[in-house]
């Protein structure tokens, strides 16, 4: 914030300067002030209601990681797997994206229906809850409330990853955490009967991990 800087002189410097410039007036006023004993007081501003008067948490407790932002409005799904899927060249960003000092949230879609891809990316910049903790909590919640069916852990991408069937039965999902980034990839499949959930997840895990890797490759 550019503001004009107007610094007052140090009192000793001022004292010296004043004594040089006003040898006769200053002692008289000083004596007068000293005799009356008047001093200046400052009335403090009260804190807003509900404020915690303790200081903000130190930086060491805040989420930190290797990523700061997504390069571009949507990630580029440009790996070999993505090319084979013949997805639209660019993703369509949702109007729900937010870029703040706390975190960046991006949702993008490629196509509709079977063969479509949706990516939800979150980069934690300064969140109170560590990314790994939040990732695990979110995944467990999605399984517990029935949003994700037939869940399984996945290796080979990011620091942690899980895959499953979305409860619409028409998409397989992969959730990946890498450092302070969380990526959720959804891939549209044909309506899946309950008996085929596990096989469908298994069959599409490779595709999902390749797409998630494309997303991670675009983070700066």
């Amino acid at each position, binding site marked *: *914030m550019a*503001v004009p800087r*107007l*610094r*007052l002189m140090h*009192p*000793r410097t*001022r*004292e010296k300067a*004043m*004594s040089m410039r006003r040898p006769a007036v*200053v002692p008289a*006023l*000083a004596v007068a*002030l000293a005799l009356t004993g008047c*001093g*200046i*007081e*400052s*009335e403090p*501003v*009260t*804190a*807003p209601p*509900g*404020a*915690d*008067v303790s*200081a*903000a*948490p130190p930086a060491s407790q805040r989420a930190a990681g290797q990523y700061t932002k997504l390069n571009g409005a949507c990630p580029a799904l440009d790996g070999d797997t993505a090319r084979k899927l013949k997805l639209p060249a660019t993703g369509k960003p*949702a*109007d*729900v*994206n*937010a*870029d*703040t*000092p*706390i*975190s960046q*949230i991006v*949702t993008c*879609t490629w196509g509709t229906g079977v063969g479509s891809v*949706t*990516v*939800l990316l979150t980069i934690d910049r*300064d*969140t*109170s809850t560590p990314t790994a903790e939040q990732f695990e909590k*979110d995944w467990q919640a999605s399984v517990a409330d029935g*949003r994700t069916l037939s869940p399984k852990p996945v290796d080979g991408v990011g620091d942690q990853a899980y895959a499953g069937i979305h*409860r*619409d*039965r*028409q*998409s397989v999902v992969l959730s990946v955490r890498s450092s302070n980034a969380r990526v959720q990839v*959804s891939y549209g499949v*044909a*309506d899946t009967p309950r008996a085929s959930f596990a096989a469908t997840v298994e069959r599409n895990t490779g595709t999902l991990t390749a797409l998630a890797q494309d997303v991670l490759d675009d983070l700066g």
Partner: protein
Amino acid sequence: MTATPPATSSSYTPVAIEAFQKAVELVEELIKKIRDELTKLINGVNAFMQAAVDKVNDSILGSVVELFTGDIEENLKKIKSLTEQVRDKISEILTKAAESVAGAVPVASLFSRGFEINDQVTRPLSGMFGEMTGSGEIDFWRGPAKNTYEKRVQDQQDAVTNATAKVKKLVEYLGQAGAGNMAYMASLGERLGEIYGSLVTACIDLAETASGALTQAIALLMHFSEVIGTAAGQIVGYISQLGARITEVLDQIMQLEAEKADLTGLTPEGMWPSPVSD
């Protein structure tokens, strides 16, 4: 005929619920951080004013200089007043944002309900169509009985198609209402993020301001107050749109009710077509 999978509204995606939750979490976190940072700024301003007072009071000659260069008490009042303005504007923003978060729970359930209806209603309903074809030795039937049977089957299939369309429309409404609110929540997060950034900058600027530089602190706080004032105006205006948004959602729900009550396409009496045996 095979069962048609239920169509998913284009208004929401499989990650819609997660995206919405993240937007809500972002706003919640920003409310907390802005409150912390505001407290930090107020503590900083108080410490700044106290340091200035101590400095002047510690030096009689300093007081004299202030008497010649400006009214220190007037400046301190100005700083206090500006800080209080900032505090009140930000407090108003935080109250409004907290109200938005409190109202977010039903919005999340809109998405959830949409998925549930798709899974529990649309899917079996659309599947019924295929199960309503004639079975047995129907090809050997002849005459009025067969004609009546086939007509009733067709009536029932039409009714299923009609009911499926109605439920799909319901799901679409829910998705659109949810998506609209999700966009609102994300935008609110962006705006709160701007305020948070301004607060952090103001705290840093204040910390860098020399303890006696009252006029510099006033300039800083005046500028900051303007920034926050503009942001507050935008946010309060924006949040008032939430009221309009809720009204819109209620309208959509009313339309849904009308849609549910509209039995056109079932039978002329609005009843489910009777089977042949009736």
